[in-house]
C-alpha cells in the first residue's frame, strides 16, 4: 500500500502537516513535526530516485483516474534528482531555523512560518512530480503564495514592500504561465504533459502554440528570475528572514528552472523550441548578460544578503546557459548546477543567517573581524564561497567544468571564455566579504555580543559545506543522475511511453 503510493507522499505529507501545524499551536511540537515530515519527504525522495534510476519512470494516477483524463504524477530522473535536493535542503533549513527565526520573526508568527514552509515544500514537490501542465500551475501558485507569506514574516518592515513587489511580479509570471497553458489546451484539448507532447507535434507551426510558448517562457523566466526579469528577487531575498532566504535561494528558483526544462524538452520538444523558434539565442544572450551584469552588481552591494541574492541571479544565468547550449552535456550541467548551487547557496545563506543571529545585521560592516570571533561560521562561509567561485575540489568546479565542456562541444569558444571570465567576478564579491571578516577589526560596539553561532545552526551549515566538498570529489552520484536525466529529456516524450 505504502509502496504503491510512495510517489504521492512528498506532496501529501507536508500538505497534511501544514494545517496540523496550525492546530498544534505551540512552537516546539510544530518544529518537530515539520522537521520530521520534511525528513521523511527527503528519505522518500531518495528512495524514489533510486527506484527511478534502477527500474525507470514511475507513473501514478491520482485518485485512480487514468491519464490523460486524471492527474498523473510522473517521476523520472530529472525531477527525482531535483526533488532530492529540495527536500534535503528543506530539512536542513528547518533544523537551522529553530534558533534563527527567534531573532527574526515575532513569536506569534512562528506557527505561521512552519505552516507556510510546509505548504511551500508541498507546492515545490508538487511542481516537480506532477505530470499535468495545469496541475503544475496549481502547485506553482501554492508554493508562490506560501513564499509571499514567508518573505513578509520578518520583523524588518522593509520585507513588506519586498513581498508585495514579489507578489506582483510572481502573479504576472503565474498568469502568463496560465495563459500559455490555456492556449495549449485550446489547441490540443489536453493537459497531460505526455499527451500534450505528442499532440503539439502535429501543430508545430500553429500560431496558437507559438503564442503559448512565448507566454510560458516569459512567465517561467519571471519565476526563475532570468535577467532582465529578476528585479523582484534581490529585495525579497535581502529582507526575508534568513532561514526563508536560505530555503528559497536554494529551491524556489531552481524548481522554476526545472519547469523551464520540462516545458522546453518534454512538452514542446527541443527541436521545435530551438531549431524552429530559435529560442536558444535569446536564452543564451540573457544568460550571459545575467552572469556579467548581476555578478558585477553583486560586487557593488553593501548588504551581504543582497550580494548573495544578485549572485543567485548570476548563477541562474549559468543554468539557463547550460540549457541554451542544446546538447546533453549542457542540459546535464544545468541540472547538476541546480543541485550544486542549492548546496552552496544554502550554506552561504545559513552562514549569513548565523551572523545575523549574533549581530542583527547582514551588512558587510557587520562582518568585520568575524574571522576570529565566529571562526566556524566564517570557515563555512569561506568554503562555500570557494565553491561559488568554482575552485577545484568543490561542487562549483564540477558544474563549471561540464558547462565549459558543453560549450566547447558546440564549438562556442567565446561562450566558454565568457563563463570562465564571469566566474572571476565571483572572486571579487566573495573576496570583499572575506577581507572584511579576516582583515578588519570589529566595531567596538559589537565586540561584546559576538560569539560563535549555536550548534543548531552550525550543524546544518556544515553538513552542506561538507556536501559541497564531498560531491566535488566523488562526483559519481550527482553526475550519473544528472547525465541520466539529461539523456532522458533529450530523447523527449516519444521514448517515455504512456504506461510504464
Amino acid at each position, binding site marked *: 500500500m505504502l509502496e504503491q503510493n510512495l510517489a504521492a507522499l512528498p506532496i501529501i505529507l507536508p500538505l497534511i502537516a501544514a494545517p496540523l501545524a496550525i492546530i498544534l499551536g505551540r512552537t516546539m511540537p510544530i518544529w518537530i513535526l515539520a522537521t520530521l515530515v520534511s525528513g521523511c519527504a527527503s528519505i522518500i525522495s531518495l528512495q524514489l530516485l533510486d527506484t527511478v534510476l534502477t527500474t525507470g519512470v514511475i507513473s501514478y494516477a491520482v485518485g485512480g483516474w487514468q491519464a490523460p483524463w486524471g492527474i498523473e504524477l510522473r517521476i523520472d530522473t530529472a525531477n527525482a534528482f531535483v526533488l532530492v535536493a529540495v527536500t534535503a535542503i528543506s530539512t536542513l533549513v528547518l533544523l537551522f531555523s529553530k534558533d534563527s527565526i527567534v531573532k527574526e520573526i515575532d513569536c506569534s508568527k512562528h506557527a505561521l512560518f512552519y505552516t507556510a514552509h510546509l505548504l511551500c515544500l508541498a507546492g515545490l514537490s508538487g511542481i516537480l512530480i506532477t505530470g499535468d501542465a495545469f496541475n503544475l500551475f496549481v502547485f506553482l501558485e501554492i508554493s508562490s503564495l506560501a513564499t509571499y507569506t514567508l518573505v513578509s514574516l520578518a520583523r524588518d518592515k522593509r520585507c513588506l514592500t519586498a513581498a508585495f513587489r514579489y507578489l506582483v511580479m510572481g502573479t504576472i509570471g503565474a498568469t502568463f504561465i496560465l495563459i500559455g497553458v490555456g492556449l495549449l489546451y485550446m489547441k490540443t484539448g489536453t493537459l497531460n504533459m505526455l499527451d500534450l507532447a505528442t499532440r503539439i507535434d502535429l501543430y508545430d507551426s500553429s500560431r496558437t502554440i507559438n503564442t503559448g510558448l512565448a507566454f510560458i517562457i516569459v512567465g517561467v523566466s519571471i519565476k526563475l528570475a532570468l535577467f532582465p526579469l529578476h528585479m523582484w528577487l534581490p529585495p525579497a531575498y535581502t529582507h526575508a528572514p534568513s532561514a526563508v532566504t536560505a530555503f528559497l535561494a536554494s529551491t524556489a528558483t531552481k524548481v522554476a528552472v526545472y519547469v523551464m526544462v520540462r516545458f522546453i524538452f518534454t512538452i514542446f520538444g527541443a527541436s521545435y523550441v530551438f531549431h524552429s523558434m530559435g529560442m536558444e539565442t535569446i536564452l543564451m544572450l540573457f544568460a550571459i548578460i545575467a552572469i556579467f551584469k548581476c555578478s558585477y552588481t553583486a560586487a557593488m552591494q553593501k548588504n551581504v544578503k543582497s550580494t548573495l541574492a544578485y549572485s543567485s541571479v548570476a548563477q541562474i544565468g549559468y543554468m539557463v546557459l547550460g540549457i541554451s547550449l542544446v546538447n546533453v552535456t549542457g542540459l546535464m550541467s544545468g541540472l547538476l548546477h541546480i543541485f550544486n548551487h542549492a548546496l552552496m547557496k544554502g550554506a552561504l545563506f545559513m552562514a549569513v543567517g548565523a551572523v545575523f543571529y549574533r549581530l542583527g545585521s547582514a551588512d558587510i560592516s557587520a562582518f568585520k573581524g568575524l574571522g576570529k570571533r565566529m571562526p566556524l561560521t566564517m570557515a563555512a562561509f569561506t568554503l562555500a564561497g*570557494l565553491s561559488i*567561485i*568554482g*575552485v*577545484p*575540489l568543490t561542487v562549483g568546479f*564540477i558544474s*563549471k*567544468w561540464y558547462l*565549459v*565542456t558543453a560549450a*566547447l*562541444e558546440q564549438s562556442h*569558444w567565446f561562450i*566558454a*571564455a565568457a563563463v*570562465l*571570465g564571469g*566566474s*572571476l567576478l565571483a*572572486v571579487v564579491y566573495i*573576496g570583499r566579504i572575506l*577581507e572584511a571578516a579576516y*582583515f578588519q577589526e570589529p566595531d567596538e560596539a559589537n565586540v561584546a555580543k559576538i560569539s560563535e553561532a549555536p550548534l543548531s545552526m552550525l550543524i546544518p551549515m556544515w553538513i552542506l559545506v561538507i556536501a559541497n566538498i564531498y560531491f566535488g*570529489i*566523488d*562526483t*559519481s552520484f550527482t*553526475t550519473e543522475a544528472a547525465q541520466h536525466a539529461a539523456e532522458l529529456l533529450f530523447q523527449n516524450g516519444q521514448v517515455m511511453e504512456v504506461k510504464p
Partner: protein
Amino acid sequence: MNIWQGFEPATLIALSICIPFIGAILVIATGKSPNLREASTLAIAALLFTIVLAITDLTFSGVGQRLDLIEVFPQLTISFSVEPLGVLFALVASFLWIITTIYAIGYMRGHNEKNQTRFFCCFALAISSVMAICFSDNLLTLFIFYEVLTLSTYPLVTHAGNDAAKKGGRIYLGILLGTSVAFLLFAILGTYSLTGTLDFKAGGIFDASHSKLVLSCLLVLFCYGIGKAAIMPFHRWLPAAMVAPTPVSALLHAVAVVKAGVFSILKVMIYIFGLDMLKELSTTDVMLYIGATTVLLSSCIAMTKDNLKARLAYSTVSQLSYIVVGALLATSIASAGAAMHIATHAVGKITLFFCAGAIMVASHKKNISDMVGLGRQMPITMTAFAIGAISIIGLPPMAGTWSKWYLVLGALEADKLFIVAVLMISSLLNIAYLLPIPVKAFFYPQEGQNTPWDKHDIKEAPLPMLLALTITSMGCLALFFYPQPLLDLINLIPGISTQLDGGR
C-alpha cells in the same frame, strides 16, 4: 633512507603528499608550545626529504610508480605518478623546506611575528600541494593542486594583516586565480575537448590531426594561464607578494610557488605539446620573445628598486623567464638547461632572500642604500649574499653556471642568436644590480665610521638563520662541483638530454 625500502612505490607517493599535511595538523595540535611545534615541523620536513630520496632511488632504478585516486570526470582521475622532472622539483622543494624551517624558526622569533602557528600550518599545507604538483600524472590533478597552492599561500602572503598586506594579497590572489581560471582552465578544457585526454605523455598528446592554429592559441593560453611563471605582463603578483615574512618570500617565492609555475610550463611543453610539435607552432616564437623581453625588462626594473626584497623579486621574475625561454626554445638541451635552472636558481635565490631577512632581523634595514658598509657587522651574511649573487649571475664556481651554459647551448643549437645575446646582456644586468650590494657592504665605509674593523662590530642574525644561509650558499658551491646527480636525473626525462645533438 633505507627505512622506506619495504614500502610500495605508490605508498611512497601517497606519503610524500600526506606527510606535510599531517605536519600541518601536528602544528595546530602543538600550537600551544612553540618548541614542540617547531620540532615537529622540522621532524616532518626531514621525514619528507627521506621519502623523496627513496622515490629518487626508485626512479633511478626505473621502477614505475603510479597512484590512482578517484575518478572525478569520466576517464579523468586524480592520479599521481613519478617522472624525473617531478622528482627533481620535489627534491629541491623538500630539501629547501628543511632549511627554510630552520631559518623560519630564527626569523619568526627574532622578528616577534604574530600568528606563528597559522604560519607554520599554511607552510606545511603549501608544501603538501607542491608535492602533489610534482607527482601529478595529468593536467587535471596539476590544476587542482596548483589552485590549492595559491589558496594555501594566500594567508602567508597576508600574514602581517595590515593594509599593505591586504593590498598585496589582493593582487596576489587576483592575478593568480584570475589567470588560472580564465586562461589555464580554458586551455585545459580546450585540450580535453580536442584530444579527450589530459595525461602527461612522453612526446606530447597532440598530433598532426590537430589544427596548428588552435594549438598555437592553446600555447599562449597555457603560457599566460600559468601565472605563477610570471611572464610579463602578469608578473605583478610576485613583487606584491613580497609583503610576506621573509621565510615565505624565500621558500614560496623563490622556490615553491614560482617554481611550481615554471615546472608546470616545462611539463606542458614536454609532455603535452612535445618539443617536436612546439617547433612547428607559430606562437612559440612570439612567446619566446615575450619571455626574452621579460628577462631584460624586469632586470632593468630591478635596477631601479632600492628595497632589497623588491629588487630580488624582480630578479626572480627575470630568472623565471630564463626557464620559460629554455622551454620554448624547444630543443632538448635548452629544456635540460631550463630544468637545471629550477634547481640552481632555487639555491641561489633562496640564499639571497635568507640574507635579506637576516639583514632585516639583525639591523632592521630594508633599503640597499642603507647597507653600505654592512659587511663589517654581518660578514657571514654578506659573504653568503655574494655567493648567491654570483650563482644567479652564472659565473663559476657557482651552480648557476651550468644552467646558463646549457641554456646558451640550447639557444645556439636552435639558431637563435638573439636569445644568446639576451642571456648575455641579462648576465651583465645581473652583475650591475646584484654585485654592488656585497661590494659596497665590504669595501665602502659606513658613514661616520672610520675606525679599523674590530670583531666587536659583528652583529649577526640569530644562529638558526646563519646556519640556514650558510648551508644554501654551500649548496651553490656544491652544485657547481657535483652537478652529476642532477644531470643524470634530467637525462632520464624522455626526449631530453644534456648532450648536443651529436650525442644522439
